[in-house]
């Protein structure tokens, strides 16, 4: 598998570390239900068949955390953008 790092260009997946679901948002610790929200954030994962947005860390390269659109069924990789730019 090859991931097109927006900084370094296409590189083999073994240069990257997998960081899991990119759609998770760290909950607000100040809310009354923070513990439940954190449980969900930490432990519960979807296992989508198809389109997935996930985090990869370019460990052997530029040290950027990236958001990668990957189809878990076909392995087709769509947009790869720096995680810091996500909305």
């Amino acid at each position, binding site marked *: *598998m*090859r991931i097109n790092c927006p900084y370094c260009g*296409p590189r*083999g997946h073994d240069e990257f*570390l997998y*960081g899991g679901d990119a759609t998770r948002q*760290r*909950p607000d*610790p*100040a809310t009354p239900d*923070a*513990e439940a929200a*954190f*449980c969900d*954030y*930490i*432990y519960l994962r979807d296992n989508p068949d198809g389109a997935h947005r996930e*985090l990869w*860390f370019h*460990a052997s390269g530029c*040290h*950027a*955390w990236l958001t990668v659109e990957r189809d878990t069924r076909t*392995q*087709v*990789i769509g947009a790869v953008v*720096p*995680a*810091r730019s996500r909305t």
Partner: protein
Amino acid sequence: MTVPHPAGQPARLVRSGLIDRSQPLRFSFDGRDLTGYAGDTLASALLANEIHLVGRSFKYHRPRGILSAGPEEPNALVELRNGARREANTRATVTELYDGLEARSQNRWPSLRFDARAVNGLFAPLLAAGFYYKTFMWPAAFWEKIYEPLIRRSAGLGTMASAPDPDTYEKSSTFCDVLVIGAGPAGLMAALTAARSGARVLLADEDFRFGGRCLSEQRHIGDLPAQEWTATVIAELASNPDVMLLPRTTVFGSYDHGVFAALQRVNDHLPVPPQFEPRQRLWRIVARRTVLAAGAIERPLLFGDNDRPGVMLAGAVRSFINRFAVSPGRRAVVFTDNDDAWSTVADLQAAGAEVLAVVDSRDGAMDANRLRSVSNISVRNTDAINGVVRRASGGRALQAVEVVSNEGQLQRIECDLLAVSGGWTPTLHLSSYLGARPRWDADRAIFIPDQLPAGMAVAGAANGEFTTRAALNAGYREGQTAAQALGLSPAQFALPSTPDESAARQALWRVPNTRGKCFVDFQNDVTTADIELAQREGFNSAEHLKRYTTLGMATDQGKTSALNALALLAEQTARPIGSVGTTTFRPPYTPVPMGALAGHHRGRDFRPVRLPPSHAWAKEQHAVFVETGAWLRAQYFPRTGESDWLQSTIREVTAVRSTVGICDVSTLGKIELQGPDSLQFLERLYANGWQTLAVGRARYGLMLREDGIVMDDGTVARLADQHYFMTTTTANAVDVYQHMQYCHQVLWPDLDVQFVSVSEQWAQFAIAGPRARALLQRILDPGQDISNSTVPYLAAANVTLADGRRARLFRISFSGELAYELAVPARSGDAVIRQLFAAGADLGVIAYGLEALGVMRIEKGHVAGNELNGRTTAQQLGLGRMLSTKKDYIGAVMSRRASLQEPAGPQLVGLKPVDRALRLASGAHFLPVGSPVTAANEQGYVTSAAYSPTLGHWVGLGFLANGRQRHGERLRVCDPLRNRETLVDICDPVFIDPQGERLRG
């Protein structure tokens, strides 16, 4: 007539072929000295010497010969080379002959000609499909002691070398625009077209000579014989600097996004690789486009005793004649269900063999007009029989075949060679490794590639385009398509005019009413009867059939047998073959040696090793080293007269506690942070607070994971207002840095903080012991004040050494003694540790290693990797008070979970044996005195244990339920693994200097 060859190779042809008669090569088979020529394979050289019996079969030990001339070979597996280079199960058909080659037959005892275990054939009913599962089931206790060793002894194929492989292997990466797999007519044309279009081309072929079937067929391409045409194309490709040619290279795996793995047999064709050269090279190929032109593999026909030596694939017969100048028989019969095999007749005749009959199973096959139209075959002196071969007879060599005509007439023809062809199977494996299933083509009765991986095209026989003309056209087509896709202008040129042969076939999946064993999978001794039995027992799916019968397993992976088996299964279950489907194709295409997969990474290069700055010095001190993660660290420094690690460690600990010792702690992760938000970032990263940390001070820090479990610990020093220096544990340095990048880039990108690892910039030495200050003072600039008031416990300061070097000094103690960590630029590390020892000789300075470090931290009750094991909380570690309640940080919410606050939960305690002479071991469990040793009574476990030289007995740390309330209690620690039980007293985890007077002194 075959003219006996002067070099004593009776079946060698005098003319033609792609062998070099000026280069005779000596080799031996089962100890017999023989000769062949450069350009031979072991198989062709054996045939040249009229050796047809080369092995015994897996289960029944039946005599076996050479079936094929390529990688699909199921029978001719030999043991090659000797000693440490011995390799089992080498296919003679792809083994390039070299001078001095030594080969032995395998799976026979006492000899190849007489194999005692051939009696297995008499017990065939016991050895039918699934016999493992049926025969060796009961009694269950017999499996490990009796059945398995018995099976292993009798059923194995070759013998492995037992010494380490003396050769070297390596890996390499390469990139190309167009990867062409296979250098037959389709592949050569695809490569030529792509190269002429300006693409970077990589052409790989598993054979040692490019050309594919062009090397083996008497055909013309344009005005040139196919062999010569091949040479001109290769010459053009070789002259192009952007074309890489990799012969002897098998592309064995395909992976996502155009990544391929290939094995190059760089020096397998030599007895020993030349000095400095690898034996094999594993390639990772990244290709923008790929043309799969891997050709096709011919199938044998299924009839009685079809495995006799002398039964050979028709295409292989032509290869041996045309390419290797060997006549594989003198009196031949050809048996086919297709037109392609008819060309074998002319080739055999040209080689001087007598072709006694062509047996063609197809109705109308013998029509004279049709024969003229499909080929120029002269069937003079040859009996053309419309019918089938029902059975082959002979033992160690073929003697005759029983032919039944379609009219029912039976005749026996004495012969020594039977050329068989059941048509060709496209070699589509690489198109299927990413999960695509091939499609059944009912017209041609073959599976062909269907949905292809992105960027891949298939050309030639691999795509069912079987004739030379079709292959050339397909190569041109896919070469152009690839160029187009790359944005190049595809080269246009006229293809050489090539007559089209006929590939017509009418499938004969099996000969009916056979007698004798009818083998489908030669390598695994799977017969038509086994497949029928498996189906009767309910194994109706192709995948189940494979597992139950072992069909398609082992080195050939069913290359000659898979489709025949599927056809039989389809017939028996009355389904079309297409709906039976294939088994899943998985890499590797052919066997890959483990050595090649390891490459450079074995022995001391198994993985990269990091050396701390004092390594060379420590080596001079005869340190014993230990691998800790990637680092090689000094474990202890033995002195003359010390017999084991414990003696050395006791001396080192005692010296540190009484004088002064030095330990290289450069392996700690070191990270520097700057920026206005660096304090804020640390606040969120660590569980404890940093607001009150003054410039010039350091503090212990505890980092949690988001789930509330402790991740790491270390210290943070404030070097300037917005400049911090933090350390991590050696083990977690990489993970913590990556975690910080995650926190900064993903969680809080708005924080204005800049940080970078400076682990490699600094050599850091712990200088510990009552005389640490005295020693340090001697190497510092004389004006540098390090008195207790200027540099108190937990101070951080920039200092200058006496020789002018700049350094950082941290008053930090892991040992519990008065201690400093001195950081100097890494290149100065070696010089500085030498200075320290030179300066401290009269102070009794010693070097201490990881063992002593570990003992002292246990004596001091400091937690380390054994306690920070990824399952423990701050409360359990006795560090609960560090958790800030005034801020958000990673792990804050989850660390407050009720289940992690449980007062009766495990808590860190110390322990010492009641009988002070006894030793303790980590991993043992706490149990109350008098209760049975059961999991239900377990109350915790011991994490660390060491002999304390300071106290004169063993001490330990562990987690005990409600442990902090239980100091003074007496418990048992039970160690069922070592079968030990010790009575212990529970105590505070800090065994030495609980008030910390020493480290503040």
